[in-house]
């Protein structure tokens, strides 16, 4: 393919970087070593230790056993075990739960029970919720972001810059302020409920804030530009004559989109998904600000281990699990991409 060939020719020189090259690269390499490689290594070692009873810090050297005691191993897999199974070693648990029906007066009545099966270890459940929220948010970002990016990419040059600016402007204020703004909008006596009530669309305020939906909204809002910008990058580069050719050769708009536009903008979509999904899974603070702390995400639970939970090793293990998940997901997607590229 043309694009691939162009990419290859650009990296063709294949020369190893010389002394100057390394010197220029040094800041980035040092940065990565100091702030990515080293902390991850520390995290990994800590995740196999156990916590000090008073401080919750990792204990890298256990005290020798006293008479009649069995020495505690310094390194073990117990933290990882705790993530996967509950105290009794079960992976799944089934519980009876009431089926609640809300009657006409708004009172709740129990009309029976149902069996619910879920992960026994709470941490797996939280991982599940986080992936679910981040997944929904990513899908919504693609659905909302793609048309926006397409529109901006196809607009004429002067309005294009203006539109790009509009995407970026909210990011001139801090994340917290933007999120609090949503709290004001969604609150029970907030702007949106007020408007809906005033225009007689609803009579009673609608509960929007402090729900899982609000958490997803917070994620979509905060990460949308990270979806729009890479897709915009691909759309802008898209050669319009290819689309015209497809249409001339009898492809309908749907088919042209499916067979020509989508494959050519796929790199932007994939980059956008990576930029949105990965940080969204580990996001914290949004669930407490907009979800009222009722839908904890894994980021909140990890942060909690280092403070009130007083268990740094366990927090490290949760963090490492998250890193591992992303590495696996990254490998899987790049495999998939390669497979797709090979078949084309």
């Amino acid at each position, binding site marked *: 393919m043309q694009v691939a060939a162009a990419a290859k020719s650009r990296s063709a020189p294949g020369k190893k970087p010389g002394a100057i090259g390394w010197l220029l690269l040094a800041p980035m390499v040092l940065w990565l070593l100091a702030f990515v490689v080293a902390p991850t290594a520390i995290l990994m070692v800590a995740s196999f230790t156990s916590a000090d009873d008073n401080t919750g810090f990792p204990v890298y050297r256990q005290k020798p056993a006293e008479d009649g005691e069995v020495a505690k191993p310094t390194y073990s897999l117990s933290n990882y075990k705790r993530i996967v199974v509950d105290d009794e070693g079960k992976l799944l648990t089934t519980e009876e739960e009431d089926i609640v029906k809300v009657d006409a007066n708004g009172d*709740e009545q129990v009309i029976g029970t149902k069996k619910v099966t*879920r992960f026994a270890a709470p941490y797996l459940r939280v991982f599940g919720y986080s992936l679910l929220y981040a997944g929904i948010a990513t899908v919504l970002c693609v659905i909302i972001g793609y048309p926006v990016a397409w529109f901006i990419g196809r607009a004429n040059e002067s309005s294009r810059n203006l539109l790009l600016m509009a995407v970026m402007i909210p990011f001139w204020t801090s994340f917290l302020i933007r999120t609090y703004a949503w709290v004001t909008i969604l609150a029970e*006596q907030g702007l949106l409920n007020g408007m809906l009530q005033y225009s007689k669309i609803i009579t009673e305020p609608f509960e929007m804030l402090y729900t899982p939906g609000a958490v997803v909204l917070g994620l979509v809002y905060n990460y949308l530009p990270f979806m729009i910008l890479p897709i915009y990058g691909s759309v802008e580069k898209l050669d319009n004559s290819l689309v015209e050719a497809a249409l001339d050769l009898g492809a309908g708009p749907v088919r042209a989109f499916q067979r020509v536009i989508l494959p050519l903008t796929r790199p932007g979509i994939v980059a956008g998904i990576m930029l949105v999904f990965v940080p969204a899974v580990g996001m914290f603070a949004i669930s407490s600000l907009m979800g009222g702390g009722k839908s904890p995400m894994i980021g909140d639970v990890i942060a909690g281990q280092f403070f009130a939970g007083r268990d740094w090793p366990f927090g490290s293990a949760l963090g490492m699990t998250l890193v591992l998940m992303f590495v696996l997901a990254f490998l899987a997607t790049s495999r998939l991409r390669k497979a797709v590229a090979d078949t084309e």
Partner: protein
Amino acid sequence: MNTTQTRRQALYSLVSAAALAALSPSALAQSGKPVLNLFCWSEYVPEAVIKGFEKETGIKVNVENYDSNEKMLAKLLAGGGKYDLIQPSEYVVESLIKQDKLEPIDSSAIEGFKNLDPKALNLPHDPGNKYSVPWMLGTVGIVVNTAKIKDDVKGVADVFSGKYKKRIVVLDDNREIVTWAFATQGIPINDVTPENLAKVKPIIKGWLKQVKAYDSDSPKTKFLKGDVDIGIVWSGEAATLWKESKGSGKFKYVLPAEGAHQFVDSLCIPKGTPRKEAALKFISYILRPEVSKLISEDFPYTNPNLEARKLLSKEDQENPASYPPGDPKLETFKDIGKAARDIDKMMTDLRSQ
């Protein structure tokens, strides 16, 4: 000049600039002016108090804030910074004394110490106040919006009776929630054992379903915005709400009939600081009635400084959230060590269902 040379020169100046930047903090620290590194709660030390102290003593105060005891502890013990004065709650004071992380304080030698309420002194976490001087006290209790809720709410059990489903805000603090459940069952609040936790687990499970939001930072905002009508929060939040409703009694503060947690936040000096003198100066400064009064006016918790209380306006003195009438059943937290983990585990389980 060829290009390689200019590039080298540019790099050289870049490197030297970086080296300079790395050196400057230590250079600054050595410049003569005396400093005090204060590590305190956010929203707890008024700006006026800091400015007044700086002006009088010429000591520059560097303020760093935290929003939970555990965050403070983590930073202090991990050696993330140099702190000369900290503001831990009672169970943290106890833990720090146990670990030999605090400088002893000769309280009797501090001017103004005599102003303090004997009821705020000599508590189990630091008998004889050998390491801590109380800053503010407070309780955890129930706030009721009486415009919306007409019932006579007396205790935690009433809050979670099921009548106020989805109208409740509670502190986003797992140990507090467990404490309330213990109180309703007559379990001593510091008896955090796996058996007792198992006993209250179903009770808490029922409660959490009724909660609308968890908030430790500013639950008062949710009351003012009308998102919630009832909740269990810090007394300082309740006192502010009481002040905001101008004594109309819209927001009522009730200490739970089952008993309540009283927290005692104190000033302590971390072990090994070279600036103990400056820290002691700050402690005696805030013990002055006219200074202590400023703190109370901004943050209406229970001021242990009896002389300062006399200077407060009648309205502030009668604020029932700051100075609860009668003789309520109050208990302080003890350090529970690794039982904190059991609480965290159980609450994560309950909150992720």
